[in-house]
């Protein structure tokens, strides 16, 4: 008798959970939960102060768009599909809707909970800052509808055969959702609803145009592989993980940096590691973290939380997270045959990796420090001074030795 696809889905989910349990234990032992708790406490403290002393000109529309749009648009789908399924599951394509239904349930429930949490945090700000706010329940219902429509649209997007068209439609969906969130925040509800109807019609029409797959096998397999990579990349910051093929993005806006490195024998590994850092998911994560950090710090600077020390503390916390992330570079090319074949002194490998990590962290710390400079205009001198002093002292004097030691210890093991 054939196994039901729902059972297969459950088996695969159980297998993945079993697979990651040892890594979760390692993370737990590393003290990361404590750090996370500290981050949440600091965040709540900052949030409380922000609510208490909300500036009259607080950019609540911009903040709403930045935090609510991703919550509405982001519609991941864990399918546990892998490349061999093209051979083994494809013949049962007509049964796949039941399989995907389980995936939707798996992703949408936490998605709606996440949206609820962000709404719970945002609504008090909105109600204080907006001159004529909608009732919170109405706003919440609108956001739930918006997220559901986005989830449905994201499935249609996955079915689009041409990658260019798919990316274009996704960009359009995100942009229009951001516009609709803005409309919800600033215009009367009936106008926002009309606007929403119009936008839904536009998206519906556009999504009908391109050539579509009935079931997007390749897309879902690639998406699953990317999710697994992200998990393993995160685990890689704490412990040894199997090396999965890296997902690569061109990122020409960053990759030029590698091209600027001088063509010399001594720069060989540096060239390799800079490209690895910039083009793999690690680089994307660093860019996102730094930008998010800058935004959060800027908002805290505006609210002058704890006389500037709130923003300074958060900038240090972001730096610590970035430090954890960037050290995942240790995992790259660990088992590459070329390390044993290139005519290069062995110590150049570790030395080059350390230099790339130090420089990256230095750049990120300076970027995170920029919004803190606004504190000077408010007359708070010490928070930016202490932050930059501590960051530079750690990055320039402590990090190099610490990183090299950890690297050689791992290699000895």
């Amino acid at each position: 008798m054939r196994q039901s696809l729902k059972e297969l889905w459950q088996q695969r989910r159980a297998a993945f959970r079993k697979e990651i349990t040892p890594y979760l234990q390692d993370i737990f032992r590393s003290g990361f939960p404590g750090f996370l708790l500290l981050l949440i406490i600091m965040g709540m403290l900052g949030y409380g102060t922000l609510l208490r002393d909300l500036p009259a000109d607080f950019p609540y529309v911009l903040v709403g768009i930045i935090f609510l749009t991703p919550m509405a648009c982001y519609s991941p789908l864990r399918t546990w599909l892998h490349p061999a399924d093209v051979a083994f599951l494809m013949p049962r394509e007509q049964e796949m809707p039941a399989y995907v239904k389980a995936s939707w349930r798996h992703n949408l429930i936490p998605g709606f909970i996440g949206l609820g949490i962000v709404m719970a945090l945002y609504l008090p700000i909105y109600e204080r800052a907006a001159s004529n706010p909608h009732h919170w329940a109405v706003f919440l219902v609108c956001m739930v509808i918006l997220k559901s429509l986005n989830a449905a649209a994201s499935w249609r997007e996955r079915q689009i055969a041409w990658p260019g068209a798919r990316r274009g439609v996704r960009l359009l969906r995100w942009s229009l959702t951001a516009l609709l969130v803005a409309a919800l925040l600033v215009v009367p509800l009936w106008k926002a609803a009309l606007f929403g109807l119009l936008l839904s019609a536009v998206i519906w029409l556009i999504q009908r145009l391109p050539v579509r797959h009935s079931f997007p096998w390749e897309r879902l397999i690639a998406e699953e592989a990317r999710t697994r990579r992200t998990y393993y990349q995160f685990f890689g910051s704490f412990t040894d993980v199997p090396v999965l093929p890296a997902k690569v993005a061109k990122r020409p806006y960053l990759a030029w940096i590698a091209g600027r490195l001088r063509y010399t024998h001594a720069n060989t590994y540096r060239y390799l590691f800079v490209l690895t850092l910039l083009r793999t998911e690690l680089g994307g994560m660093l860019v996102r973290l730094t930008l998010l950090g800058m935004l959060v710090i800027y908002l805290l600077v505006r609210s002058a939380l704890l006389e500037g020390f709130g923003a300074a503390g958060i900038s240090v916390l972001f730096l610590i997270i970035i430090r954890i992330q960037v050290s995942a570079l240790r995992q790259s090319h660990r088992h590459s045959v070329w390390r044993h074949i290139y005519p290069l002194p062995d110590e150049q490998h570790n030395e080059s990796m350390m230099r790339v990590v130090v420089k990256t962290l230095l750049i990120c710390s300076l970027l995170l420090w920029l919004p803190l400079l606004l504190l000077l205009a408010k007359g708070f001198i010490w928070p930016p001074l202490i932050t930059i002093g501590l960051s530079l002292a750690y990055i320039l004097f402590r990090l190099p030795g610490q990183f090299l030691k950890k690297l050689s210890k791992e290699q000895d093991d």
Partner: protein
Amino acid sequence: MEPVLRVDGLTGGYSPRRPVLHNINFDIKPGEMVGLIGLNGAGKSTTIKHILGLMKPLKGEIQIRGTTLEQDPQRYRSSFAYVPESPVLFDEMTVQEHLRLTGMAYDVDPGHYEQRSEMLLKEFHMAAKRTAFSGHLSKGMKQKVMIMNALLSEPPLYIIDEPFLGLDPLGIRSLLERLVEVKNSGAAILMSSHILATVETYCDRFLVMHRGKMVAQGSLEQVREQSGDRNASLEEAFYRLVTGGDGDAPVT
């Protein structure tokens, strides 16, 4: 003439209790192309791994340009280029960036690098793919990138494992032409392949391995003689050598 590569009494494998290679002896001189042939599991790739320094000999010694890996790792490693059986490229790098990385690793002079990388891109019909990521290339194109990287550094020794796998006819022709060219300019080539007709046409000498032993080696005439049929083609001689006995016949 001093050999570029000398393998002397090599016994090796993954465990001292169960060696895979048994007392392998051969050398390769400058300007020679030598074909390493054998069935799957005969020990060709293990021999190559020992030469590359990826495995340590249990007994015996390997010298490249008169030095062992332990004596002078820099000189040893800079003396050869390696093309593995399956292309091993960095997913996050483009074709051109791979060439640049190799140029830096082998300390190729910048001007020379520019000129040679352009020439190789053209020669292997890869100019249009110079900015493509290796992950987006077909298997044959990946193999071309490996070969181009090996040719870029112009070392005295080329170690090439199954070079024709996945290559299109134009790629095979370009590779063979370039190999003849580097051979004529004085480089030594150790090439492992199952395509015996090509090996017979292009190689000067042959190493026939079977069950971890060298069952025959030398010119075509010498291999024919060792197989017991003076008129056989390389393929026929090879067939006799690996099926006629158990592979433990004494090497003459």
